[in-house]
């Protein structure tokens, strides 16, 4: 155990000091924040620069729908008897905007907006509110105006965890949260997996494995590497979480952030899945690294593994359409896609405890089997140089029929 920890410590300490790790671990979140801040600033400044603030609005009521006296008239609204006089006022800069309610408005809903420059959404909303208030008044005196203007006030109840969502923004937040989670996990997994593979490939090409083999067993070496590099992954996730927490505090005023709900149970489940996923994918990548022995080639294989794990993201649409459909259910049980698929389903729908246990159990067993297989392959491939193992060789090694494999390899090695 002590040796496993020594290997783990070395892997952790040497990799965490690497510029590439710092760039990815800290640079990634910083870059994301930068983009968000930049986008926000950009939209604010563009509103301020180009859009009409609309303090002074003129209107012409050709349809005769505005009550007399006008109801809910915003302060700066000025009525003009006809379009021509309104136009003159606009040209003379007495008003910033002229709204002409068409004579056929009740049939067509047509309102012409005239302005020098673009019109902000807030202004359009104001105008809409003004008109619907007056329309509502002409429909009924008894019905509350608010119900005529806003008849459907949806409140969502997702039955699985009783979370109430009172707006569409909240629904958006519910969809986005698992995606963000999944993406952060993906980045961490990708980074750590690459480090794991690179370090194994390096030790093999540098032939340092032969020296290590006299101090640690292949299983100890593999275990130490998985733990040490896994620690790097956790550091990375922690950095993201800290950044996310800062983001939540800074953006706490906005509707979207208020709607974000990250239930504690889901965070725990997500972390458990991440750990299993790391050991599953990590041991596969370690196996690939030790077999292939070249960084470039092993990256290609790693790419294939990654694509399988992000399949739920690619098939996101089917999760949104029907989170309990056959495809999402299958993906949430299949060990290689289970972490992401299950996370998406947990947030979007009601997942029965049995399904959750099955998914987790399947993944746990698969991970154990893969780690065991990887350790076997590792033991044999770590000292083989200059010869590639064929899939048949690998299968033999896993089944314990190693004699045939070594003959060819060692003879070729010029032992």
């Amino acid at each position, binding site marked *: 155990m002590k040796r496993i920890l020594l290997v783990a410590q070395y892997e952790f300490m040497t990799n965490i000091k690497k510029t590439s790790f710092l760039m990815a671990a800290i640079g990634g979140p910083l870059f994301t924040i930068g983009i968000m801040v930049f986008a926000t600033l950009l939209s604010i400044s563009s509103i301020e620069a180009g859009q009409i603030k609309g303090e002074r609005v003129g209107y012409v009521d050709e349809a005769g729908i505005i009550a007399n006296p006008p109801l809910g008239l915003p302060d700066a609204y000025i009525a003009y008897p006809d379009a021509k006089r309104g136009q003159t006022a606009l040209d003379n800069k007495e008003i910033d905007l002229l709204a002409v309610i068409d004579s056929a408005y009740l049939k067509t809903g047509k309102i012409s907006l005239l302005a020098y420059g673009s019109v902000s959404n807030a202004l359009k909303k104001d105008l809409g509110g003004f008109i619907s208030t007056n329309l509502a008044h002409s429909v009924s005196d008894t019905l509350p105006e608010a119900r005529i203007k806003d008849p459907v006030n949806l409140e969502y109840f997702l039955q699985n965890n009783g979370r109430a969502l009172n707006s569409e923004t909240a629904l958006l937040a519910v969809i986005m949260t698992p995606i963000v989670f999944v993406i952060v996990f993906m980045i961490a997994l990708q980074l750590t997996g690459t480090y794991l593979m690179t370090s194994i490939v390096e030790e093999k090409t540098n032939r*340092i494995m*032969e*020296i*290590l*083999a006299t101090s640690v067993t292949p299983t100890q070496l593999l275990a130490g590497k998985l733990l040490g590099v896994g620690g790097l992954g956790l550091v990375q996730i922690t950095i993201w979480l800290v950044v996310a927490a800062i983001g939540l505090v800074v953006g706490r005023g906005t509707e979207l952030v208020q709607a974000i709900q990250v239930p504690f149970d889901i965070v725990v489940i997500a972390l458990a899945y991440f750990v299993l996923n790391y050991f599953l994918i990590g041991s596969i990548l370690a196996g690939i690294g030790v077999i292939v022995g070249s960084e470039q080639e092993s990256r290609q294989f790693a790419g294939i593994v990654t694509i399988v794990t992000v399949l739920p993201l690619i098939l996101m649409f089917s999760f949104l359409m029907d989170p309990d459909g056959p495809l999402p259910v299958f993906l949430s049980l299949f060990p290689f896609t289970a972490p992401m698929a299950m996370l998406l389903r947990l947030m979007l729908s009601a997942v029965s405890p049995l399904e959750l246990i099955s998914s987790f159990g399947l993944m746990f067993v698969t991970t154990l089997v893969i780690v065991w297989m990887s350790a076997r392959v590792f033991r044999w491939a770590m000292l083989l140089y200059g010869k590639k193992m064929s899939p048949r060789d690998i299968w033999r090694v896993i089944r314990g029929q190693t*004699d045939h494999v*070594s003959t060819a390899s*060692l*003879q070729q090695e010029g*032992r």
Partner: protein
Amino acid sequence: MPATTIHIDHISKSYGSFRAVDDLSFDVYAGEIFALLGPNGAGKSTTIRMILDIIRPDRGTIQVFGGPISDDKKNRIGYLPEERGLYKSVSVIEVMTYLGKLKGLSGADAKQRSMALLQKLDLAEHAKKKVSELSKGMQQKVQFAVTILHSPDLIIIDEPFSGLDPVNRLIVKDLLEEFKAGGGAIVMSTHQMEQVEEMADRLLMINHGQQKLYGEVNEVKRQFATHAILVQGQGAWALLPGVLRVEENPRGHAGTMLYLAEDTSADQVLVAMASSPDTHIDKFELAIPSLDEIFIQVAGEKEKIL
């Protein structure tokens, strides 16, 4: 009798139908340099890997320090494989400390010993440099330092001098002699026969996994001595009593080889030469073949049979 460091008893190892090591037995004692010789593919690396418990023999037993190998015993062994390597992008002192810790040293101890060794090997100023910044010869020395860092009782070295210039060769040779004088056992696998003749006490030569020669270096050489003498000078060599035939410059040696009759000793020939007025002797030696010659002879024998 020095303590037995390695005791190998009838070990065999096959890969499929290929017999890499075939019924090999030998001992290595404390305080000696033991040479493991053999052509490429003879089974040397497999034998070393079995001693180090990287692979297990199919048959036979291996005892190290008086018993089966264990994790603690592995900490008493230093190993420098032929295919050498170090972490390239890490500093020299970090690599050494890590490998020292894997051999059971504490962090501080490993660091202190590393610095002392680097000092000895004239590398102290490079301690903080990355391994990739060192020349190949320097890297070789660092690798050697790693091998002896944890003060092992046994070191196993594949080609200890490959890639070293004469100055560094001497430094490493002195360190090996020092290690031996301290009671350590050295197993040295090499193709450089002159090094074996110069340094090794005993040797084992294997070919096709089988023992070919085993014993003290001088004894082995004597076994291969032909009943002949090599002379340089002037004289009617062929006419001397007891000389069966002569050969000029045999096997690349300058001089003349005199093959003697079975009942004639070298002393008798020398007396005859001294009493012959026409004879002038510059050099007179028993024709003991070099290890190189023995190696070629032994390695070649099997080829002829095949």
